[in-house]
């Protein structure tokens, strides 16, 4: 070893440590990619016996009967889609206009604390939304809001029938509260990314503040806002615990929003540990696979939509 000079030794050592370091860097990245791929592979493998047994009928049949080993996911797909749609309609409206106010109209002293509170709303654990929805919101909806809607709009089938506290309607509202921060946060970024010149030009033409918002800024931000809503929709589709606590957990399709329903995620949450047959477990994992694939697609779309707007802003 004496033949090596101090510098050579140092160089050799740093080359070795570099090699280990880069192995760590690439190893970690490879592991991460493997985990994401593994998610799909494991869920697919776990649901294979259900896929073989039911095929495409799994998605179109509305028979969910563990006793006879018949599994059709249609009621859960219906409950998931409808509760999420209620949520995104409400949260989209409140979130987009709220964000518009925070970015364009509010004085800074108002905007900052409001934005802070809305961001913290996103941090509240879903089990707490569920608890609050179950014990505080659902009784209020059942006693006041739902009878009111039935009295005023009872001619619509969606507001007819017996009023349950735990229902699609309650779940939709709890989900709306949960996804408002997502809509609001991204919409704020998207609105802020609309070029300043557009606003100035609009104001210079004599448009009022609201006209500038409605005719210049929001149209300019449409793609990004749509992306924000798609992302929030993805959150709502996969939300489990809060939905499970307030939706009533009944695998049936009813026209009325005041009836209990079921979602993909809440079936898994409720029945997985009680699933007795292998086919039952497999069917539940297939629901998970369905959720995984759908949310992958939804989030992919959302990212493409928001990135076209937000990426140039980030590169600055």
């Amino acid at each position, binding site marked *: 070893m004496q033949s090596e000079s101090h510098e050579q030794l140092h160089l050799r050592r740093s080359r070795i440590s570099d090699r280990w370091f880069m192995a760590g860097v690439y190893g970690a990245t490879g592991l991460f990619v493997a985990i994401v791929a593994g998610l799909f592979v494991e869920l697919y493998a776990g649901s294979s016996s259900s896929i073989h047994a039911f095929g495409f009928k799994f998605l179109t049949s509305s028979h969910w009967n563990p006793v006879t080993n018949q599994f059709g996911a249609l009621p859960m797909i219906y409950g998931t889609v409808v509760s999420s749609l209620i949520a995104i309609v409400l949260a989209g409206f409140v979130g987009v206009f709220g964000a518009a106010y925070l970015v364009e109209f509010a004085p800074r002293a108002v905007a900052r604390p409001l934005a802070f509170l809305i961001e913290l709303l996103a*941090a509240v654990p879903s089990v707490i939304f569920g*608890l609050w929805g179950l014990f505080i919101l659902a009784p209020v909806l059942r006693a006041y809001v739902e009878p009111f809607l039935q009295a005023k709009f009872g001619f619509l089938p969606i507001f007819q029938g017996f009023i349950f506290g735990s229902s699609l309607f309650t779940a939709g509202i709890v989900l709306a509260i949960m996804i408002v921060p997502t809509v609001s946060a991204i919409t704020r970024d998207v609105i802020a990314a609309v070029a300043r010149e557009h606003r100035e030009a609009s104001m210079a033409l004599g448009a009022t*503040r609201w006209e500038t918002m409605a005719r210049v800024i929001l149209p300019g931000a449409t793609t990004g806002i749509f992306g924000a809503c798609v992302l929030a929709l993805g959150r709502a589709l996969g939300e489990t615990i809060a939905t499970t606590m307030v939706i009533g957990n009944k695998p049936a399709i009813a026209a009325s929003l005041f009836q209990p329903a079921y979602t993909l995620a809440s079936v898994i949450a409720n029945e997985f540990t009680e699933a007795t047959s292998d086919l039952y477990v497999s069917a539940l994992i297939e629901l998970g696979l369905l959720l995984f694939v759908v949310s992958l697609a939804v989030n992919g779309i959302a990212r493409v939509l928001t990135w076209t707007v937000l990426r140039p802003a980030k590169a600055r």
Partner: protein
Amino acid sequence: MTTTRSQLPFGRRPLTAHMRWRYGWSAVGVIGSGFCAGLAASLLLLILGYVAIQGVAALNPAFLTHVPRPVGVPGAGVANGIVGTFIVVGIAVALATPVGVFTGIYLALFGRGRFAETVRFLADVLSGIPSIAIGLFAYTLFVQPFRHFSALSASLAFAILMLPLIIRTAEESIARVPTRVREGALALGISTYSSTIHIIVPAARAGIITGLLLAIARVTGETAPLLFTAFGSQFWELNPTNPMAVLALQVFTYAISPYEDWHRQAWAGAFLLIVAVLILNVSARLVLRNRFEA
């Protein structure tokens, strides 16, 4: 046509009916959107208020120091769940931090081209995958083969849930370290390893810690994957290969039970959870703010 002073948009002059209508409509829009923002913000206060009122009323020292007891037996607590939360989240942090930070280093410093874009895309998309699907993954990987539930499998699910946030914040904060710092390190002839670990990563420390705190906050309240990984337990359990009680899961179980006594405990547990999550979130913000002041 000559312009008189009264026609210029300055000074006081009576508004036409049309202008009044436009200004009125504008005010409605501004106030209406302000109402939306206020509504969204007040929802947090509403929920916090209820949890605080109901939770504090149900809190007592035994709740923090005792393990669960049968319904109606006084002196029941969630101490095992609090400890369980620390164990499950702690192991998850130990699993997720190295993978997440190193992937972040890759994306910020070495990642070029299509593969890096794919990794970024996967990180973004993974953050939107429902936690229950990730719980199922942990189940098929870690519970099914061993035929019993374990805290470790819950940690695995939590680690996967934390990864996207850790990766993206690490990447962003490392990429934000000024190029001249990196070049300075290279000019001194320091190895890639040393310059990254001893110079660049420490400079990006605040951002990385912020991401970690937010990731911890996210999983501390997470419940869905626990149902079939940690499963829950009525007893003291410190061995991570066994089923374990976790606070968020206890809140869920107590809330959907038919017992008044357990409902009160659910509120008290929810209060503890929300305090922990809010402290984590606020401290994440403070870490980031301090960096900008320094």
